[in-house]
Structures are given as C-alpha cells and as structure tokens.
C-alpha cells in the first residue's frame, strides 16, 4: 500500500515537479495549490503525511497547520519553504520537520522517509 502524501504548494511548476518526484519515489501524492483546497482534501480522505509551503495566497501554511492540528494531531507535517524566518513563529513547532527549499530534494525526501518510511 502506497503511503499517501498531501502536497500544498502554490507555485504550479514546483508543485508538478514535487508531485512527479514523490510519485517516482513510491508515494501516492495529492497536490493542491492552496490551503483551502488542502483542508477540503483532508476532510474527504486521510493522509499519512502533509507537506506544506508557508507563503501562499489566501490562508498561509501556518494557518493551515493550525487548522490541521485542530482536526488531526496525529498526521505528521513537513514545512517546505524557501524562508528560514518562519522558524521564529512558534506555530512551526507543531510541524515535525522544517525543510528549506533547495535545488535538491534530498533533504525533503530524507525527512519523508524518516517520518513515514
């Protein structure tokens, strides 16, 4: 059974790239472009892991984490952002990992493996 990942990334090309890479790595990936769609997906089905960007139009990733954690504390969350400064926000503590985007996906993949195998 493939592990199910919800990917929240507002940058379309990047979203597609991550989706393809993670599929190739053996995961089932639902990719959405904003937090509202992510919340809709979470209501409809369960996921083994959520990967979210922070800076997005509409609700940002921090707000998404707040809402997800209020519904399902048990789902691991990875913050995948280009920015370090969100570490100053205590809500990011709720996430299980904080990955700074880079040209390589190695760190992100390693964190995913660590959290859900």
């Amino acid at each position, binding site marked *: 059974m493939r592990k199910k990942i919800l990917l929240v990334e507002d940058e379309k090309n990047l979203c597609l790239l991550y989706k393809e890479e993670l599929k190739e790595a053996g995961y089932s990936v639902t990719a959405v472009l904003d937090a509202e769609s992510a919340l809709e997906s979470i209501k409809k089905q369960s996921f083994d892991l959520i990967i979210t960007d922070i800076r997005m139009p509409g609700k940002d990733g921090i707000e998404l984490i707040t809402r997800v954690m209020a519904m399902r504390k048990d789902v691991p969350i990875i913050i995948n952002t280009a920015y*370090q400064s969100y570490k100053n926000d205590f*809500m990011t503590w709720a996430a299980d990992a*904080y990955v700074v985007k880079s040209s390589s996906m190695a760190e992100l993949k390693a964190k995913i493996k660590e959290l859900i195998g």
Partner: protein
Amino acid sequence: MSELRKDIINGRWVILASERSKRPDDFRPAQSTPEGPPSGFCPFCQGSESKTPPEVFALRKPGSRRDRPGWRVRVVPNKFPALNRGLPPERQEDGIFQWMDGIGVHEVIIENPDHGKEIFDLPLSQVQDVLDTYRRRTDSIEDEFQYKYVHVFKNKGREAGASLSHPHSQIVATPIIPKGVNEELYSCERLHRLYGECIFCRIIRDEIRRGDRLVMDDEDFCVVTPFAPRFPFELRIYPKRHSPWYSTITRRESASLAKTLKAVLLKQKKVLADPPFNYYLHQGPNPNLPHEAWVNLEKSYHWHMEIIPVLTRVAGFEWGTDFYINPVTPETAAGFLRE
C-alpha cells in the same frame, strides 16, 4: 550555528542566525500571523506537549509525568534557537573584525496551560509560579559560566513581537554582556562614586518623596514612570531591597512582586485598552563570573523590571539618533495609572 559579530564602531554585538537561503523579503507582515486557539491548535496548550522540545523544567501536579499534562508552568528549549548551548566560545579576530560562535541559551516559559489566560488573569499564586520559574531558570543557567548575561523577557501581542497568543515568556542567555546592559552597569558604577550610594536606591527614595511619578508603592516594591521615559506609559518596577540580581528575591518578595505585577498590568490594560506590551528584567551579569570590570557591582547595581506598552512605533528619528520623542509626560501617565 549562529554567529555573534561585533560592530567595532559602537561596540554592539549582533546575533546572526545561520540561514541557508535568506532572501531580501524574508519576513512576513505581522497581521498575517495567526494566533492559535480558541478554534485552532496551539503547541503550548496542555495536551500538545509532544509538539514542543522536551521540557527542561516544569512546576507540576505531584505524580504527573514529564512532557505530559498536569503542569502549571512549563519551560522548553526554543525549537529554533537564536543561540545554541555549548562550550565557551572563543573570540576570533581578523584585523578589525571580531566574532564568535553563537553559544547561549534560548528557552520558552509557557506561563500556564490555559491559552486564554494572560499573566494578569491568573491567581496570584500562579503569577508567583511564573516569577519563581524566572528565578529558578536564571539560577540554573548561571551555573554555567559561559553564559554571561541572562535576559528574561515577555512579548505580549503581535505588535510586541509575540508570534503566538498563548501566554509565554522567554529567556536568552548570551556569551557577552549586551551593550545596553553594559552601559547601564558602567553608568551605575560612576553614579555610585558620585553620589556614594546605589543610584536606584536614590531614585526610589526621591520618587516616593515626590509622588508625582509614583504609580504604586508597598513594603517591597514601587512602580514609577521614569523621569525621562523613551515611550508613553513606560514603567519601572523597583524592588526596595537592594540587590543586583533577581535570583536573590525572597519568597515573600516574590509574592509581593506577583501582586504588584498583576495590579500594574491590570491598570495598564484598563487605561490603555489592553495594549500589546513587553516587559523584561534588568539584572547584574552572571554572579558566578569574576567582576573585575565592575568593582562595586554589588553596591552599585539594582535589579528591576521594565514594562513598555507598545503604543508608538520606533521610526527613522529614533533609529538614526537613539534619541526618543515621547508625546506623554511621565507625570501625566502616572496620573492616569493612579486613578
């Protein structure tokens, strides 16, 4: 690992957090920061203990387990600290440039398990728990001599720098004595020589005698608006017993400070419509260090608490000159707060 660098011109050290992909727009406007419950999740609420780093200290119900519910005050290391614990950093130099590794302590004090209760909403015994935790953590951190200065502070409200509304304070212990503190210590040494007594003891006596800047006064503490405040409604809480170090506070004084702090914060809330605020302790450097630089430190310095409601913005004039324009006189502010 972050790095401390010294500005050779003004002697100020700054902490540069190690960041891999800093961008020019790498900050977020404060208004987009969510504040957590009542509707959402908060990592500081009771039941979310697994979402913080393991606690380093807690006041708990007898029989309750570490990193589980049952605590009254809980202290955890900052998950993404500005400074990291370590061995004493070596000061490095290359010509005119000086720097050192960012060694230090960065902890978060979760003041109570209830998200909606600010420090001024708590019963006095719980306010005292928080104050007692400040003392115990300061004491414990000062056992390690590489931490030269322990700074205890609280940011309440987004405009005051808090990213989460669950009431919390923070402790940052630094491997150097911050410039502002250093200047205060030196100034107190000079004034001690000039007046033959601790300048704070003198201020307390004079303010009580005059009374026009006095907001509260009891056996152990007095609250005043300082003579030359940088900000409107800036406040100082002075202990009447002279000591450079907060950690010397007695149990009775701690109970008295809890009463004073709660009362003054409630006054501030009422008069200024629940403003965001910062408060912090100013105290002497780690007492376990030799104090060659401050011969009379024990006699000349006097710990105290400063409270700054965030009512104005520090802007170009203040940044450029370190010279403040305050639209409210301290006498007027004290009058409002006494009413």
